[in-house]
């Protein structure tokens, strides 16, 4: 790949890193990442990955920008209210870096469409806000051997782990979705805006490390932080022989749509 002088300037702080260099930046620029959810986690992930020059960034979201999003979903601006989130996100990513090809999917992921969407990508970022989607992403990535970053935030807490084929998956740790309505969604429970940025940028860093092939990913480790006390810890996790999808006797053998917990935004309509 031949860099233009503009690209050498734009990516100079990457290229001078010994662990990135010219070849690492080329790998980033050849990378294809899919971000599912253009919300609190997807916003910072999309911005940093666009800025980093990831070649193709797909972004999936069926919603439009709502005023309640603006406290944390920093890719959406006040004038974007009522605009499809994927369009709003695409405009900002292209404004940051015209090198990046952004592909939008104005839809939600379900069992019947997720495999078609993820198939063209090297890495998937879970930026969703509900358990059915998180389990669906895990299952689709396990079946299709796609690495992905799990991320979840609530109140002042965040957690993330990175799946690569053959290593511990989300279900190895969290067997199955919690009962409907047992867990509040973000719109019911509140979240400190800045922790969305903390977690989404960790996910973006994992994507970049995956592409350049340096360092240690959060595989077989669950990173948990509590921003109220500002403590971080990583808990080792293992591939689980009783895992319902990647264990010795799998019971999950096809993709299914778990029932969506009723969210107060929907019940309001």
């Amino acid at each position: 790949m031949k860099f233009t002088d503009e690209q050498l300037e734009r990516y100079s702080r990457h290229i001078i890193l010994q662990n990135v260099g010219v070849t690492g930046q080329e790998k980033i620029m050849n990378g294809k990442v899919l971000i599912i959810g253009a919300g609190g986690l997807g916003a910072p992930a999309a911005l940093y990955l666009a800025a980093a020059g990831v070649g193709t960034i797909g972004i999936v979201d069926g919603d439009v920008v709502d005023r309640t999003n603006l406290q944390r979903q920093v890719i959406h601006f006040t004038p974007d209210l009522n605009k499809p989130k994927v369009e709003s996100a695409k405009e900002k990513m292209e404004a940051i870096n015209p090198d990046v090809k952004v592909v939008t999917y104005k839809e939600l992921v379900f069992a019947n469409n997720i495999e078609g969407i993820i198939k063209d990508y090297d890495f998937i970022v879970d930026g969703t806000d509900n358990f059915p989607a998180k389990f669906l992403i895990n299952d689709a990535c396990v079946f299709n051997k796609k690495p992905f970053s799990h991320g979840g935030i609530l109140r002042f807490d965040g957690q993330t782990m990175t799946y690569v084929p053959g290593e511990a998956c989300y279900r190895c740790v969290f067997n199955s979705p919690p009962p409907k309505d047992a867990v509040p969604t973000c719109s019911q429970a509140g979240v400190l805006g800045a922790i969305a940025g903390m977690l989404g940028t960790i996910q973006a860093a994992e994507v970049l490390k995956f592409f350049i092939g340096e360092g240690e990913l959060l595989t077989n480790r669950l990173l948990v932080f509590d921003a109220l006390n500002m403590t971080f810890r990583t808990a080792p996790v293992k591939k689980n022989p009783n895992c319902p999808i990647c264990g010795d006797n799998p019971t999950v053998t096809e993709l299914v749509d778990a029932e969506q917990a009723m969210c107060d935004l929907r019940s309001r309509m």
Partner: protein
Amino acid sequence: MEFKIEKAIDLEGVVCPLNLVKVKVALEEIASGELLEVILDEGDAILNVPRSLKEEGHKVLKVVPLDRTFKVVIEKK
């Protein structure tokens, strides 16, 4: 002793860290053990670029002061 220079680049007037970026790009275009000749400005450029390259494992074989620049010969690791 004469060196067989594989590639030469003139980075006079190119400031840090872009000069390092350009050296790294040029090093990508030669093979391990081959030599790159670089012209670097006095000051920050000559103080920093050879040091960074040594940290990455390349060898700085020769530094020749010129008028207001330096000629540096680097062996790619």
